[in-house]
């Protein structure tokens, strides 16, 4: 078991013929992910590292029975690419693209919820179930199969923490980068629920950051969970009113501070690490 993706996932890449598309298609294939097709309008018939390219998601799904899509198209085309994947019956869409307008993201999420499609992202590193399947852009080498579930709002910070977990001798069941934008397809609570159901996951790590109230909501949810949850929150030293690099990370109108998140998590019995590497020590200690 694992959540969202595993050895049976049949993955397409929307935007496979771009620079990043080709790079990550190769990396994913190398990791063992069943990349069954790519989609780039106008490039049907081409192949990328042996993967056939289609003009449309409908065409790709019809020919390959794909159930998962990774979207790497530029932001102005992400709404359309997402609608296309949702309508073609893809069950899980991982949107890597960053800087998708909020109003587009709202529409994507509304249509996905209406059709029962799970969305991870946008602006995220993707999902990996180590040694089974990687649908994302994360560096494969730092992951190892194990029992820690990781859910993270951050990209590279996740790698930092996963690396620490792996180096401490623990591995991951699945690592989900949910994305740093204010509007995301699956939030921390939703992923926690999946991990709670997953037999392979024994403990869970939340990588949060300033902005929004996702961690506070997670804390509330954790009070009813059986599994141990650990957390790290980035942005303790971030000043209010400044967007720290992407739209999600902002302390606005007095809300979304690291203090508030850490206090809520502590109150729910979650050990919060002071720096990334400490997470591994906490899990081993707990």
């Amino acid at each position, binding site marked *: 078991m694992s959540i969202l993706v595993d050895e049976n996932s049949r993955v397409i890449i929307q935007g496979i013929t771009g620079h*990043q598309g080709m*790079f*990550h298609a190769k*990396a994913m294939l190398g990791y063992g992910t069943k990349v069954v097709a790519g989609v780039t309008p106008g490039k049907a018939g081409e192949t990328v590292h042996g993967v056939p390219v289609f003009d449309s998601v409908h065409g790709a799904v019809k020919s390959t029975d794909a159930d998962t899509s990774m979207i790497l198209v530029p*932001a102005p085309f992400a709404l359309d690419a997402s609608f296309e994947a949702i309508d073609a019956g893809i069950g899980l869409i991982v949107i*890597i693209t*960053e*800087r998708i*307008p*909020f*109003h*587009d993201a*709202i529409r994507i*999420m*509304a249509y996905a919820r209406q059709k029962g499609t799970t969305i991870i992202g946008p602006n995220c*590193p993707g999902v990996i179930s180590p040694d089974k399947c990687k649908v*994302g*852009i*994360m*560096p494969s080498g*730092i992951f190892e199969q194990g029992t820690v579930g990781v859910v993270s*709002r*951050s*990209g*590279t*910070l*996740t*790698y*930092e923490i996963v*690396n620490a977990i792996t180096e401490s001798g623990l591995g991951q069941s699945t690592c989900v980068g949910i994305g*740093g934008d*204010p*509007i995301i397809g699956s*939030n921390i609570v939703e992923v926690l629920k999946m991990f709670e159901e997953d037999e392979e996951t024994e403990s869970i790590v939340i*990588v949060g*950051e300033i902005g929004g*109230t*996702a961690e506070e*909501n997670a804390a509330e949810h954790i009070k009813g969970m059986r599994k141990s949850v650990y957390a*790290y929150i*980035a*942005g*303790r*030293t*971030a*000043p209010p009113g*400044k*967007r*720290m*690099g*992407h*739209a*999600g*990370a902002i302390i606005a*109108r*007095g809300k979304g501070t690291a203090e508030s998140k850490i206090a809520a998590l502590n109150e729910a019995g979650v050990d919060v690490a*002071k*720096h*990334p*590497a400490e997470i591994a020590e906490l899990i081993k200690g707990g």
Partner: protein
Amino acid sequence: MKFHEYKAKELFGAYGIPVPRGVLATSGKDIEGLDYPVVVKAQVLIGGRKKAGGVKFADSPEEASRAVDEIIGMDIRGYEVRQVLVEEAAEISKEYYLGITIDREERAPLLMTSAEGGVEIESVPDDKILKRHIPPFSVLPPYVLRDASKFLGLAKEEGKAFSAIARAMFRLFEKEDAELVEINPLVLTSKGEFVAVDAKLMSDDSALYRHKEFQGMEQDLTPLEREAESKGIALIQLDGDIGVIANGAGLTMATLDMISLKGGKGGVFLDLGGTDDPEKVKEAFRLMKKAKPSVIFLNIFGGITRCDSVAQGVKEVLDEEGIDVAVVARIKGVHEDEAKQLLRDAGFVAVSSLERAAEETVRLRG
């Protein structure tokens, strides 16, 4: 992107939201054609201008002229006032709050309104604010307007006028890719008419590509931040002295936090994002140098970023222009070994643990 009040009001007017008559002025000589009394308001992209003396009332042209000249040039929480908005003062019968923003958890637009207008909405108790989600893709549903009018205790005609404003506000919110539209206070005059006496508007930077008309607008940024933005790099100047370049907002924040934990203080947040373009990395170092940090901490954990490309950029900028402060580099991820080799060849200390790197950075400052 934050809008100046006067810019927001221009847009409000275009959408049919009633705003006071007014003129933008840079000196006391610019005021013409207004009825008195007026209010003179500093145009700065930061809150708290009233407390700082940036808002003055005037009963005559002479008084107004004087007020303008007093406010122009004023420093409000670090921002120099270069423009003021001089507006006819509304006769206030009642002040309301009306705002539309995005609810992250619900993934939908959220309308908020309160009869306690004119004060910071954060200070209004929750039960005095009506909150209603707006179905994505939809127009503002009639029931929301009905609930709002009732909640605010508006008479029938007032409710109609209020609803027209709310509908216009939602149209603006949708069409202009806004993150936040806010009228506080929304004034009901003694004649029974609504006027948007203040206007707050933030639009989505990610949607700028479809709003060319907003490009180049003055931003709430330092000169260096503005320069970085024009080059597509996220740079934020902070209170401390240590410069942090990392890839990813979370990692950059975590690096700053770690520096603080080790007794240092971050002076520059520079997020390279997912780029591995050596030219952009060079640009980032050039910008960082301009901020004159005591020491630079480069923290790269590669995913979509190819570490060797980043390292190539660092090496080139060093070769071409030199760097006169210490640089602590930590690099990990795709093509990490090539990157480390490149950096070592360039004379950097390549530390592998974040914690130790932060300690080293703090040690090397000043």
